[in-house]
């Protein structure tokens, strides 16, 4: 057992550090949940890609560096330590790309990935529906086979493909994104027969197509961080089906594993946040306030624990293992940790803790307030923490399934 980095890993880390030191914007970008901030973050993705740092773990042919999981973790540690911006392309890179690598055709990989890597195409996820949240398999949006002909909504000629109809919601980034991916019911027989996971198809679709209406939804602080997507016979060609039609649930679950696993929230992000919290505590706190001191210490401990837990998982994966239900441990841990850390920061800020990130006087350019709002969604999305705890109890501890 060791925590040693090879000289090649150290060199990789040093190269990343040097590039980031030279390129990370000096002033923080505006919130990526605004039109202006979204554009600025997209431009940052382009710059990252030009340095070949936007998708380090991908193969070189798609813009990556073929980096191991360990090197990806090292890159992320350097990335957030450098104070680099949040990743507007995260949904595509962390959720869609792993699915494409596992189930996509060579044509799909070549068409989708380079534009994702450069930020030219920013992706939104489209899983949830008004009546399908934690119980995702109860989704009702449909994909109907079309053998070519005319779209009722647009009147345009279409080739062989699918017509998407229905409503998606809580689609992160959809207010400003270019394309989206999600599940659609292509065979109603499964749901009718009490097997809702059957007959689903995983599709990619453009958000500016005829028949698509995007209605931004203001999150808790009012910023349009997600959106509803209304689809009315939106034509999608066969080339945009991922995996086999009807096999969408199985295909999507490989993404869910990734999402909850290692890639959604890298430890580097929390290590950097904990460092900033300690600096804030040293600057602002009353040393006699040991209650606050203990909370700051827990933030430091939690970031280190999450980093080490992830190193252990990286070793397991490097040895040919996989992450299954174990990724639920991760998801509950980081999502609750993130909130606690930001609550501690806001408490340290005293009367300034209530200032919105948009306030002129907001400390640290509003990053604590923005981070707090962002963190509040963590226990809800990517599978609620209630669902994660069910998975932990049933699959890791062997407890029987019960009523949800």
């Amino acid at each position, binding site marked *: *057992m*060791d*925590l040693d980095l090879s000289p090649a890993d150290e060199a990789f880390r040093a190269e990343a550090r040097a590039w980031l030191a030279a390129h990370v914007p000096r002033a923080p970008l505006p919130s990526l949940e605004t039109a202006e901030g979204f554009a600025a973050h997209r431009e940052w993705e382009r710059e990252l890609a030009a340095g070949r740092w936007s998708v380090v773990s991908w193969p070189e042919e798609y813009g990556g560096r073929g980096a191991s999981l360990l090197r990806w973790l090292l890159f992320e540690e350097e990335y957030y330590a450098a104070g680099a911006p949040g990743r507007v392309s995260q949904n595509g890179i962390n959720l869609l790309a792993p699915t494409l690598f596992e189930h996509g055709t060579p044509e799909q990989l070549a068409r989708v990935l380079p534009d994702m890597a450069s930020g030219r195409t920013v992706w939104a996820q489209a899983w949830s529906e008004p009546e399908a949240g934690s119980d995702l398999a109860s989704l009702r949006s449909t994909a109907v086979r079309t053998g070519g002909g005319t779209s009722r909504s647009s009147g345009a000629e279409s080739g062989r493909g699918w017509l998407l109809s229905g409503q998606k919601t809580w689609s992160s980034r959809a207010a400003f994104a270019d394309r989206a991916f999600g599940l659609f019911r292509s065979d109603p027989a499964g749901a009718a027969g009490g097997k809702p996971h059957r007959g689903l198809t995983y599709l990619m679709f453009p958000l500016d197509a005829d028949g698509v209406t995007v209605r931004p939804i203001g999150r808790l602080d009012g910023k349009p961080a997600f959106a509803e997507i209304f689809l009315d016979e939106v034509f999608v060609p066969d080339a945009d089906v991922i995996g086999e039609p009807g096999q969408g649930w199985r295909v999507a679950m490989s993404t869910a594993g990734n999402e909850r696993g290692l890639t959604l929230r890298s430890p580097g992000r929390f290590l950097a946040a904990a*460092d900033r919290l300690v600096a804030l505590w040293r600057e602002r706190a009353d040393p006699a306030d040991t209650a606050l001191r203990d909370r700051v210490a827990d933030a430091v401990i939690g970031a*280190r*624990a999450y980093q080490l837990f992830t190193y252990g998982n990286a070793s397991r994966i490097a040895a040919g293992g996989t992450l299954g239900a174990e990724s639920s441990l991760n998801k509950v841990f980081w999502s609750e940790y993130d909130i606690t850390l930001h609550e501690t920061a806001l408490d340290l800020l005293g009367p300034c803790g209530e200032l919105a990130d948009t306030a002129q006087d907001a400390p640290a350019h509003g990053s604590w307030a923005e981070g707090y709002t962002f963190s509040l969604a963590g226990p809800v999305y990517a599978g609620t923490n209630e669902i994660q705890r069910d998975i932990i*109890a049933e699959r890791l*501890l062997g*407890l029987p399934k019960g009523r949800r």
Partner: protein
Amino acid sequence: MWFLPDDAQREFARSLNALLTAADTPAVSRAWAAGDTGPGRRLWTRLADLGVFALAVPEAYEGVGPLPVELALAFTELGRHAMPGPVVETVAAAAFLDRLGDGTGTAAGDWLPGIASGKTVASFCVVTGGNPYALDAADADAVLVVDGDTVRIAESTGPVQPSADPARRLARPLGGTVLARGPRVTAAAAHAADVAALATAAQALGLGRALLAHTVEHVRQRTQFGVVIGSFQAVKHRLADTLIGLEFAEPLLYAAALGLAAGDAADIPAAKVSACEAAYAAARTALQLHGALGYTDELDLSLWMRKARALRSAWGSPADCRARVLEGARA
């Protein structure tokens, strides 16, 4: 980087687990609590035969150590089975004597080979840390007491002060002759306290794992309202949280052990507080989910629960550990 126990380390832990599983440690622990240390001493010797105490003793004194990673794995197994006795204090005494080396005159040579072989059960305390008690001092072959920059071997002990854990027989060490004095004593004592904190963290992790496993077993069998109580979400979620606490404490323990092997104690306080909090949370979960049965001393699992409470305070309180974490933090 390979941040998982390797095959040999796993095999070592498995062999200890097998030995302790067959040893009926609840009976050994209850006997120890009643002052009958015979079964405990016999088990101690068998653990020594598998190399547990030699891990803290260098080769020059007939040991194989110091090997902090293996020590952490071994103490996880001791905790898993609620092994009684001053196991932590014995390896801390070994680390102290090893670090002090020639400064003790003949003490290192006198005591270390016996600790490695299991013949010598030692206790150790640092009264300057605010703790006047040495664990199982009355039954130990040697009690080392650090007070400021002096260390003495105690002559006798005060009356046993019962602990939250009945198998922990605390007593004040009394009298004795000064063995060594000076800054080397202080430095060696700080090192020994780090080894003790690491071993305690490991013990706590093992305790927590056992508490969780036994509680899971219970809720899979206990039926109410016509179904097993383990099918209720309130029960499941509490157990899931208990597992999360333990799973995230374990890598801190391993990193602390690796650090100690390289002379860096930075991760030790985080490992100590995390493992002890996780174990204590597991004890509270076990108590709650066993219902009234969990509140009885008749239930063997109570030995684990009560030890989890005691270990929180031993070798670094939660507040002490958190303060040390921030002393060592970056930024």
